[in-house]
């Protein structure tokens, strides 16, 4: 039901039951927030969103207070502004003064609030001992000194991922967010999905920045630095450079990476096609022999870590295929290096991913051969943007180029893996071809194309009624896995940690909102509509890779390039 309320002497419409904040936002009136996350139950903890309501003696937090008919609200009265200013001044009293060196410099909500509220001096000063940075983890760094205790990370981690790595704690008389027993992150239950980074207003949580490592690698003479980027990157970088969100700019990325100085630029979607083919073979084998079903996908390293911690009993059901990032790395180190006579020790592989967990994955011991990693350095979309700025490249004014031979071709099926449901769709396409010898009549599987976090379909392929489930977010995955003992009808389960999949990964540009993520998804589906090669098994260079190399490898060599194993991880849950 629609009601009238009065805001700043103007009548506006609001829905009964919605919060003041939501009514203000839908009428284009901006009120600052800190602890609020869209779509989450409000906590009313920070009070930066306060407004003045006529007849109420105290200021009211708009994020958690419902509208009432004919309520008279002032959103920017002197009193309100003063209150907000004091809140920020108090936050700043406890905050280090090192914006210039901060990971979130120019992109920090606290900085922005201080500017908006015209805070020009440190009003209160609270001398506190510096808290140690937690540098233990290969993916995520926690700087407790910069934490303003808004609790957004805790809630995302708990409610979306069901992990609850952090909670508020009082340690040494300081309130902080702490892991269980205040352990370093690398031995905590954190799955490194990075969703907490996406909501942290400050630099308290951020990825381990590897730009310096790349700069060093590019500087060493005689090193052959090979870069490759995941299918999602081409549709999520544009907005960092004021281009239309979701715009597919793979050609521009190729050109920019060459300008930066990488010796070779490959498209990891090539390896994704290999991954799809191998996983399909594995699925066929398991269905034919009725073992280890359902098969779980293995392209999301955060999901893998989750399974190792929470469901070690299903590890045998997880696909043995390495993730596309790792397959790309090992193809370069094992096959490309030999073909081109480049000693493997002279190659440095850099992978660009929408993900923070990929950094951890690249460092896993299972992902090395005789001490040499498949992927040496993994960076996020955000770091790529930084690297491009560092090298002064103007994306708006460079010509598109294609990636380097021979790993430059890709199918649009590979691209689909960026979206929750896409890996299943891609596998089904190849599965149908391998079993029936024919392509699916309709390649687009609409039931898998929506933003629900749990989707299920059945498709008859050959004699089998193939049961598929697709899940994104770990809390949903955990609930689903618990129901599995009662399910005998499922063959393939695709799981991704980030809601909607990699398009919404924890390594993506911070500013993105739901609309931007929708644009990325649309862009990928557009590519799939227009692309000529829509199935992994028709990727010409992949076909060649099989006939020239993969098919001639011994089982043991193949194992090295394509497959891996995981094992139980003991952490406090």
């Amino acid at each position, binding site marked *: 039901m629609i009601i009238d309320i009065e805001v700043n002497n103007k009548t506006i419409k609001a829905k009964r039951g919605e919060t003041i904040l939501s009514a203000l936002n839908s009428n284009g009136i901006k009120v600052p927030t800190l602890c609020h996350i869209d779509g989450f139950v409000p906590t009313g903890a920070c009070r930066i969103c306060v407004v003045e309501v006529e007849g109420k003696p105290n200021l009211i937090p708009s994020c958690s207070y419902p509208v009432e008919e004919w309520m008279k609200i002032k959103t920017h009265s002197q009193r309100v502004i003063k209150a907000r200013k004091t809140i920020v001044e108090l936050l700043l009293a406890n905050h280090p003064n090192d914006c210039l060196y901060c990971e979130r410099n120019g992109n920090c909500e606290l900085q922005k609030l201080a500017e908006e509220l015209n805070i020009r001096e440190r009003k209160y000063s609270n001398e506190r001992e510096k808290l140690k940075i937690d540098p233990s983890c290969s993916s995520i760094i926690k700087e407790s000194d910069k934490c303003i205790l808004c609790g957004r990370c805790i809630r995302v981690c708990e409610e979306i991922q069901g*992990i609850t790595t952090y909670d*508020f*704690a*009082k340690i040494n008389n300081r309130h902080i967010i702490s*892991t*269980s*027993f205040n352990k370093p992150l690398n031995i905590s239950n954190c799955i490194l999905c990075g969703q907490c980074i996406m909501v942290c207003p400050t630099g308290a949580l951020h990825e381990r920045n590897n730009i310096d490592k790349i700069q060093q690698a590019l500087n060493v003479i005689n090193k052959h630095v090979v870069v490759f980027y995941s299918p999602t990157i081409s549709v999520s970088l544009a907005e960092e450079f004021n281009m239309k969100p979701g715009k597919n700019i793979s050609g521009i990325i190729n050109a920019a990476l060459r300008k930066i100085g990488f010796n070779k630029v490959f498209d990891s979607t090539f390896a994704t096609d290999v991954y799809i083919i191998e996983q399909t073979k594995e699925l066929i084998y398991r269905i034919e022999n009725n073992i280890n079903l359902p098969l779980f996908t293995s392209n999301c390293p955060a999901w893998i870590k989750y399974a190792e911690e929470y469901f070690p009993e299903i590890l045998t059901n997880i696909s043995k295929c390495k993730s596309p990032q790792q397959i790309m790395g090992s193809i370069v180190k094992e096959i490309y290096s030999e073909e081109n006579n480049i000693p493997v020790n002279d190659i440095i592989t850099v992978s660009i991913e929408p993900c923070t967990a990929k950094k951890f994955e690249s460092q896993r011991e299972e992902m090395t051969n005789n001490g040499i990693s498949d992927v040496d350095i993994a960076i996020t979309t955000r770091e790529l943007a930084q690297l491009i700025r560092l090298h002064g490249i103007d994306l708006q004014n460079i010509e598109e180029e294609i990636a380097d031979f021979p790993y430059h071709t890709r199918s649009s099926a590979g691209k689909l893996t960026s979206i929750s449901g896409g890996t299943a769709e891609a596998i089904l396409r190849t599965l149908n071809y391998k079993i029936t010898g024919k392509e699916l009549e309709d390649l687009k599987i609409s039931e898998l194309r929506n933003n629900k976090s749990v989707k299920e379909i059945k498709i008859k392929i050959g004699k089998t009624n193939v049961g598929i489930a697709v899940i994104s977010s770990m809390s949903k995955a955990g609930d689903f896995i618990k129901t599995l003992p009662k399910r005998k009808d499922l063959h393939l389960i695709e799981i991704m940690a980030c809601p909607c999949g990699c398009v919404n990964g924890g390594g993506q540009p911070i500013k993105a909102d739901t609309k931007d993520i929708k644009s990325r998804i649309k862009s990928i589906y557009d590519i799939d509509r227009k692309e000529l090669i829509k199935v992994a098994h028709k990727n010409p260079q992949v076909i060649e890779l099989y006939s020239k190399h993969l098919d001639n490898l011994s089982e043991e060599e193949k194992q090295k390039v394509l497959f891996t194993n995981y094992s139980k991880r003991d952490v*406090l849950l």
Partner: protein
Amino acid sequence: MLKNIDTIINKFTNSNRDNLIPILQEIQNTYGYLSEDSIVSVSKHFDLPTSKIYGIATFYDQFIFQPKGKYHILLCNGTSCHVSGSKKILKEIEKILKIKDGETTSDGIFSIQSVNCMGACSLSPVISVNGKFYSKVNLIEIKKIIKFYQTKEK
């Protein structure tokens, strides 16, 4: 040891969250501290992550998460003691023993725990070592007190 923790937990038959603090108290009274194992058992009982149980417990001064040292130093951080400089005393102890509030030295000899008003405000700042009270402690005094126990151990 685990078995006994379960006995304590099972005394509280329902997993109503109001029972959380009483259970933790009883575990601490029995074992002197809250171990990782015990928090894991409690977390299973309440179906809550360990980070939450740990987080909640840290807000209560009475809980410690390492076994107490042979000499357990309680340091009052109540209002009166705070005003008369208990924080400086704590810093000093932390400096000498190279541990933080709530921790135990690696040789297991000393541990520190700051607590609320110990009921001797007129003698503030107050500390106690294994129950023996020291009043109006200052920076010189505290060095002597710790030295005394250290020599006892040599």
